Structures are given as structure tokens and as C-alpha cells.
């Protein structure tokens, strides 16, 4: 379809925050994120004839951003690729749940440790945990949980089956929870044991300011 300059510009400016957010979390580097967004916009303009409908603009440009990111990663000979973009099968991360770690059925009608844990999460905790996810997991969590693309859109964007989206997203979310749990434990969180006063272990995390290197950070 013919794409007018005005339409293209309005769509890009509308989506600029989302594009930047996704780029920043993919690259984990502010300057690289800005370069990625700029490169994406240029490539999208050059490829505007491939847009099938105005309604598809968002998923179309996200696909271009994703492909641009992958191409750039493979091209960077100076920065050796330290991890594969493919997902490996995880071990216990595939089923890890903070809920299972903290939930105590007899507390159902009172404050619950698992809810306190979520309520205590700070933006910095989540940003750090997200950055520590492997790229493929980080990508799918960003597309689904931040940008709210549905499974079909993600499948189309990443060129994978919907079933793979479903399973990869579940693993990624579990892995994210495991990282959050490990971060919290590094700061002294203890799961309340039966017989202990749950109030002594509120499940609150702290923002990781000058934290020690623990499990190897993300990129």
C-alpha cells in the first residue's frame, strides 16, 4: 500500500516511546538503543511498500526493529556475541514461581507474603532483573508484558509458531521471577517458615544501588 509521509511520521512519533523502550531493553545500552531506533525508522521508511495495512503499522515496525537488532548483533565483530538468540531449554527456571516459595495457605485471609513481595518490588529491581534475562526471553517479555502484543502478533513478528510463543513466554516469566527471587535473597530476604512471624519477613526488596556483583549481570 502507498504510505504517505504524514501518516508515517504521525505513526512513528506516536510509537516513539514504545520503540525506545523496547530498544533500550533489547540493547541494555542507552546510546545503542537510540541508534537502533533511528536505524529502524530509516529502514521502515525505505521498506514502507511492504506495509500491508495501516492497522498493521505497529507490529510491522516492531518486526523491523527486531530484525534490525538481530542484524546489528551479528554484524558487530568487535563485540563478540556471548549468548545465542535462541532459547535453550531451561532447567528448573521453567517452573519457578515466587508464589510457590512464599505462599502459606493458612494466611489466605491475612496479609500474604507473596503479595507483599510484589508490592515491595521497585522499578529498579524489575529493570535489573529484566536486563539479566537472556536476550530471547527478554525480547518476548518486552513484547508481551510491556508492549502488550498478543501471541499471534509476537509469533508473526519473531517468525515462530504460536505454541513456541506460549511456552517461551511462560519460561521467560518464570526465569524473571527466579532472578527477582535471587536478587531479593541477596539482600537478606528470608521466606517465612511455619511458626515464624510472617511480619518479620515482609518480602520487601530494596532497589539495588551499589550492589555487589552476584550472579553475573545482564548485558
Amino acid at each position, binding site marked *: 500500500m502507498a504510505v504517505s*509521509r504524514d501518516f*508515517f*511520521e504521525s505513526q*512513528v*512519533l506516536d510509537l*516513539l*516511546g*514504545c520503540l*525506545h*523502550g523496547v530498544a533500550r531493553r533489547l540493547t541494555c545500552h*542507552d546510546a545503542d538503543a*537510540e541508534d537502533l*531506533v*533511528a536505524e529502524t*525508522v*530509516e529502514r521502515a*521508511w525505505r521498506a514502507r511498500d511492504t506495509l500491508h495495512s495501516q492497522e498493521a503499522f505497529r507490529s510491522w515496525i516492531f518486526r523491523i526493529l527486531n530484525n534490525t537488532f538481530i542484524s546489528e548483533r551479528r554484524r558487530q565483530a568487535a563485540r563478540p556475541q556471548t549468548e545465542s538468540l535462541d532459547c535453550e531449554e531451561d532447567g528448573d527456571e521453567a517452573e519457578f514461581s*515466587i*508464589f510457590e516459595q512464599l*505462599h502459606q*495457605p493458612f494466611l*489466605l485471609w491475612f496479609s*500474604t507474603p*507473596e*503479595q507483599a513481595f*510484589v*508490592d515491595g*518490588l521497585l*522499578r529498579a529491581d*524489575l*529493570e535489573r532483573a*529484566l536486563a539479566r534475562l537472556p536476550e530471547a526471553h527478554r525480547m518476548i*517479555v518486552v513484547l*508481551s*508484558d*510491556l*508492549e*502488550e502484543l*498478543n*501471541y499471534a502478533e509476537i509469533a508473526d513478528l519473531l517468525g515462530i509458531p504460536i505454541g513456541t510463543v*506460549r511456552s517461551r*513466554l*511462560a519460561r521467560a*516469566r518464570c526465569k*524473571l*521471577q527466579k532472578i527477582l527471587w535471587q536478587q531479593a535473597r541477596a539482600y537478606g530476604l528470608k521466606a517465612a517458615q511455619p511458626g515464624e512471624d510472617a511480619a518479620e519477613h515482609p518480602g520487601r526488596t530494596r532497589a539495588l544501588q551499589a550492589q555487589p556483583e552476584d550472579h553475573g549481570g545482564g548485558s
Partner: protein
Amino acid sequence: MTRPTLDCEQVIAQIFDYLDHELDAERSEAIEQHLHQCKSCFSRKEFERRMLAKVGDLRREAVPDALNERIRGLLRRF
């Protein structure tokens, strides 16, 4: 048609699909029926829902002024 009855294991296995609105109406209703009756699964569903909302809140961030200017400059050249 008889609505399928789900056990806790089946509900937890589909909890993300449910929260992502990726299930058909029949499966969603079956899960909701279970959640009405099972406090533990309801708590789990609420936990995962709130966790997803927390992650989703990361979306809100301002575009750096420099990037804004850079992209606007780019667009003017098209």
C-alpha cells in the same frame, strides 16, 4: 454441551494463557468456575496478575529529548 471441570494443576498450567486473554470462551469460563471455588488458585491468579502489572508498569518512560530531536530531524529529511 457440558462445561469441562478443571483441577488445580490444569488451571495453573493455563494461568498465563488465561491472564493473556488467549483462551477461548469455553476454557476461560471453566477456569473462572474453578477460581470461584478454589482460594489457592485464586490467590495464585491474583499474584501472577499483579506481577504482570508490575512488569507492565515499566513501559511508562519518557523519550529522551535528544532522541526526539534526532527522529524528527530524520523524518524531515524523508
